[in-house]
């Protein structure tokens, strides 16, 4: 049996297959279709200070090997997260990583404070500074090194739990933002959030997305995610959680080779909410067949030429 466990800072996860924020709800939606206790971790939907209805429809559209979404951070808000979800998570074996979004430093801080003020078993926070679909998505942080570092260090003061900054690919230099996160005291970075995209119905001439621009995800962006992870890998010493277009165990191996220490599965959950169980099963077989004792031994081990 290959060792699938991975370590981020001082936290050990039983396996590296996490579900990505916004693609798995609050983790409790589909018990018939997926046994969440098998997951390495659940990253919950971005939570903001107040509840949000999200953007008007149309919110999603398929593209070649991908999809664009502009959900607009529809969520129950931090109060309800605390009152309704945290107690549920107390009784779950699966580690919960809470994803937080905000439109100002204040909002991120307020949300985290509220959660830190109550007792809960969540293992960490993923900070969304990279949602391309709403003003409140944190993108003004995600494209700016100074603001990223400042936000990270402010949040670092508030918690001893894992602090993970979620990076945007829609920047000239993702490594710079990763370095700022590291300098600010993040335990890890996750990459990537969605790629800015647009889709038009040639016949009706309408934008297929209400907000015109949305976030591209799915297999189409796997090469972008791998490139971002590998670039960041050479520039920071903290672990990287790989995201983008992962649909099978081969993709997981590739993300590890590029430099990830764990991965998140997003869009693929929509096709099959139980796909992470399949990926985990195949990953185990893969490692056993190839006599790879520990998946962590693959991190960053891609062989380059020349």
């Amino acid at each position: 049996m290959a060792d699938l466990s991975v370590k981020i800072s001082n936290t050990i996860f039983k396996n590296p297959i996490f579900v990505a924020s916004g693609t798995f709800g609050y983790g409790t939606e589909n018990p018939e279709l997926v046994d969440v206790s098998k997951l390495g971790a659940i990253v919950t939907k971005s939570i903001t200070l107040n509840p949000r209805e999200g953007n008007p429809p149309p919110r999603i559209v398929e593209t070649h090997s991908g999809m664009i979404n502009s959900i607009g951070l529809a969520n129950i808000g931090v109060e309800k997260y605390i009152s309704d979800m945290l107690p549920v998570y107390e009784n779950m074996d699966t580690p919960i990583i809470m994803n937080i979004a905000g439109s100002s430093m204040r909002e991120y801080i307020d949300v985290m404070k509220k959660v830190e003020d109550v007792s809960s078993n969540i293992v960490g926070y993923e900070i969304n500074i990279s949602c391309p679909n709403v003003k409140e998505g944190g993108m003004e942080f995600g494209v700016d090194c100074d603001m990223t570092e400042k936000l990270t260090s402010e949040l670092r003061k508030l918690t001893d739990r894992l602090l993970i900054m979620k990076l945007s690919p829609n920047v000239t230099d993702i490594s710079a933002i990763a370095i700022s996160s590291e300098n600010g005291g993040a335990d890890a970075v996750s990459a990537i959030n969605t790629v800015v995209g647009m889709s038009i119905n040639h016949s009706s001439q309408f934008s297929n997305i209400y907000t015109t621009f949305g976030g591209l995800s799915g297999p189409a962006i796997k090469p972008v995610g791998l490139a971002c992870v590998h670039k960041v890998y050479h520039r920071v010493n903290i672990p990287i959680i790989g995201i983008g277009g992962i649909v099978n165990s081969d993709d997981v191996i590739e993300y590890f080779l590029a430099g990830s220490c764990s991965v998140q599965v997003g869009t693929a959950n929509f096709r099959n909410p139980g796909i992470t169980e399949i990926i985990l099963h195949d990953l185990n077989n893969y490692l056993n067949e190839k006599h790879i004792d520990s998946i962590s031994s693959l991190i960053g081990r891609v062989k380059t030429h020349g």
Partner: protein
Amino acid sequence: MNIENVTISSNKEIAMNLWRMSMNAPKIAAAYMGPGQFINILPNNNWEHPIRRPMSIASVNGNNVEIIYKIFGDITDQLSRKNSGDTINILGPLGNVFTEWDNKDVEPILIGGGVGLAPILNVYESCRNPFMIIGAKTASEHFMKHDPKNNIYLTTDDGSLGIAGNVMKAMDEIVLHENSIIYACGPEPMLHVLQKHAANKNIRIQLSVESYMGCGVGLCQGCVIERQNGHVQEHSYHEKYSLVCLDGPVYKNSEVTFG
């Protein structure tokens, strides 16, 4: 709710570009709750089209689940090329159901436009002699007989079969009672007109709506439709928008807003 690899038992073109597919889906058939529910279809393993396609259940008989679909794009084209014996992957049953049509006091008026006929036919087959109106653009899109004596009214936009005009034209032939309930599925403009009509006549209506679905199971938040209640708070969740895959696809009276 189940994910099932199912074997296709038949797949036939029943009118121009309109196909009926039957599949052997024991788990989904067993969990089926009634007309209105749908399944989410994945016809192949490749990722060119990452997202499943929702299709209303047109009938359930024993282990057999049927859909009626129209060729629109790639996936429905691929479906039409499947042969009996081939397998596809489906997820379901999903969504809620039409209600009260099986109540003896109710006089159902079934209205289907375009591919909206699948759930309508599904209700029809469980009712005794209800009124049914099926609308299409032209004769070749119809596969039933215009049979007013048996309460079946077909309409065509071009007048090539049945009543010339849209489904509202056929409504004129039907006397509405306070016990009438309209059950409708079809293009948004048709649902919109029917919704207003029912409100004006003060009769009940149940609408099966469509929306673009990313998952069908409440994960993506993509499939929303606007609710029509006036009580939406600024900071709220799920008051303004309803998830069609979970709360729908069937909505009553003026629950939802169109356009």
